[in-house]
């Protein structure tokens, strides 16, 4: 029983981080209808930049974080402008492929700059685990969860109350109408890429802090696809809830099925869940059901 509770708590904490990365996907998808498959590479890049700022420039953590977030903002903006803008109105396969291509480029560049060796993140959070009484949360996951919650709340507040947030929601709702109301749809596209990049970069720093960083960290980004499909591609709340559910399910499969299959089930479980959701309810728990008419 103890181990079960422990696994569920770990799963919840990991799920919070998944939720944050999923938020990155959703922010971009909601406004621009593009699924950014290079998200994992954004994440890794963020972790590497933060890592370099901490180690090479020996900056304090908050400065490194601000620098990383700023660079992520610029990165999202530039990528939208250079790569995604020319493809507006192109078939969906082109848009998906271009993000895949982007991911491959980023991965290769990171390989060149930082070499493929595995690195431990310097300690940026106090290492004491949190004792809940009935179970213990490791420090990395705990702080990850806290970051995820803060990130989500900030994004939700921006969406709800700020002018930009309202413009973004309007664009997501109806581009034509938003345009005619004087909203710069192009600006919103660029901004949502920047926001998406920021969300994933925070996720990257948190995960890098837990597992250490390497070029191959980005594969987690693909696992998060299960989260957003479960939650619904265009639902922020769904992303968070989906993250928690997938986090728990993943850790439970790890607990019960790893002995049967000799390891590795934890990595592949989200994809099984993904296929099942796609078969039963492709638009996810909270996603908008698209009715197609000829």
């Amino acid at each position, binding site marked *: 029983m103890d181990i079960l509770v422990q696994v569920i708590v770990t799963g919840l904490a990991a799920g919070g981080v998944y939720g944050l990365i999923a938020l990155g996907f959703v922010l971009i998808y909601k406004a621009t209808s593009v*699924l950014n498959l290079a998200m994992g590479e954004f994440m890794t890049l963020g972790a590497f930049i933060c890592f370099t700022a901490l180690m090479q420039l020996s900056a304090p953590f908050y400065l490194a974080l601000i620098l990383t977030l700023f660079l992520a903002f610029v990165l999202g903006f530039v990528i939208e402008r250079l790569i995604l803008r020319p493809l507006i109105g192109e078939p969906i396969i*082109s848009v*998906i*492929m271009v993000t*895949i291509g982007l991911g491959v*480029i980023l*991965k290769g560049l990171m390989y*060149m700059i930082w070499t493929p060796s595995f690195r431990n993140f310097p300690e940026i959070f106090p290492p004491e685990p949190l004792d809940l009484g009935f179970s213990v949360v490791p420090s990395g996951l705990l702080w990850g969860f806290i970051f995820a919650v803060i990130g989500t709340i900030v994004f939700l507040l921006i969406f709800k109350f700020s002018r930009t947030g309202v413009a973004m929601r309007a664009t997501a709702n109806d581009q034509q109408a938003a345009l005619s109301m004087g909203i710069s749809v192009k600006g919103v596209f660029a901004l949502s890429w920047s926001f998406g990049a920021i969300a994933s970069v925070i996720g990257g720093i948190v995960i890098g802090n837990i597992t250490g960083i390497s070029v191959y960290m980005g594969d987690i980004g693909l696992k998060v696809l299960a989260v957003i499909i479960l939650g619904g591609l265009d639902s922020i709340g769904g992303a968070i809830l989906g993250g928690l559910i997938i986090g728990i399910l993943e850790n439970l499969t790890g607990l019960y099925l790893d002995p049967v299959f000799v390891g590795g089930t934890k990595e592949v479980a989200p994809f099984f869940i993904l296929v099942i959701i*796609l078969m039963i309810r*492709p638009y996810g728990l909270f996603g908008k059901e698209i009715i197609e008419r000829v």
Partner: protein
Amino acid sequence: MRCGDFKEDYIKDEEIFQSYFVKFWLILFFIFLIIFPFIANHYMLYVANMIGFAIVGAIGLNLLTGFTGQISLGHAAFIGVGAYTSAILITHLGFSFWLSLPFAGLIAALAGIIIGIPSLRIKGLYLCIATLAAQFIFEFIFVHWESMTKGITGIHIPPPRIGSIEFSTEKEFYWIALFFVVLGVGYARNLIRSKMGRAFVAIRDRDLAAEIIGINLFRYKLSAFAIGSFYAGIAGALWVNFLKVVTPDHFPLFLSIQYLAMIIVGGLGSILGSIFGAIFMTLIPELLNYLSEIVKIYAPGNEEIFVPMKEVIFGLLIVLFLIFEPLGLAEIWNRIKSFFRLWPFSY
């Protein structure tokens, strides 16, 4: 269109070899392909074999993605299924290579159909994610079904033979590869001008409209998956029999991306494009290897940079072609052809 080249009926318009000119050059090219193994060295033959397998696989993916519009990120998984089927049949059940080939194709086609079933409900983005999931699930199976696939140690395969002739070197295998490439290209070229090929294109352009004009979506979408995966299975079986070993490492997600890159760079919805793409994308890594050898001699210590360079260049090619030349090399080829055909009066 060439001057004085008028089509008087539809059958003429649908001919594969449109003019004597085309026939002449194709025969010349074919003769070159037959002479090639006698003049080429081992390395060139090795590359030629690799190009052959890539062409078969790329045509399969192009039929599925380029013609039918069903994006697949799991092509490497189907290639893997074919490869493992062939390897297991040969080593466990003592099948000959030749007999294992159709089974490799069929089992891969079956896997393709299973993955394709969701395509009836989901499309575009969602289908892309489903095939991505399939890729990871199959990779998991390759590693963990140890009684069959021997896990990460892999399976060693004896070379194929007919009677006492053994196909173990690059030169001997070249004939097998050439045979299947010609067969595969010929079949695909005929398929796309048949009823089924037209149905594929109709589904790509607008699947709901296609269904309304009487195309059975269920049948044709699954056919596309089956045929595409069949090609993949054959490509995989040929590939691993050439390498004589199969391990799960042969079929990573990157291979799927590589195949997608081939058909995008070559040209979506074009058989010729698949061939161009396969040749181009196989030659680039070889060229990079060559460059890294040169760098190793003149500036030792710097050759490391070429390992990730492959990925960067692949990614760049995908992005640049999508933005600047979405119809790929096939379109560039057409443009060059019409330049010479119309010269000097290009209007």
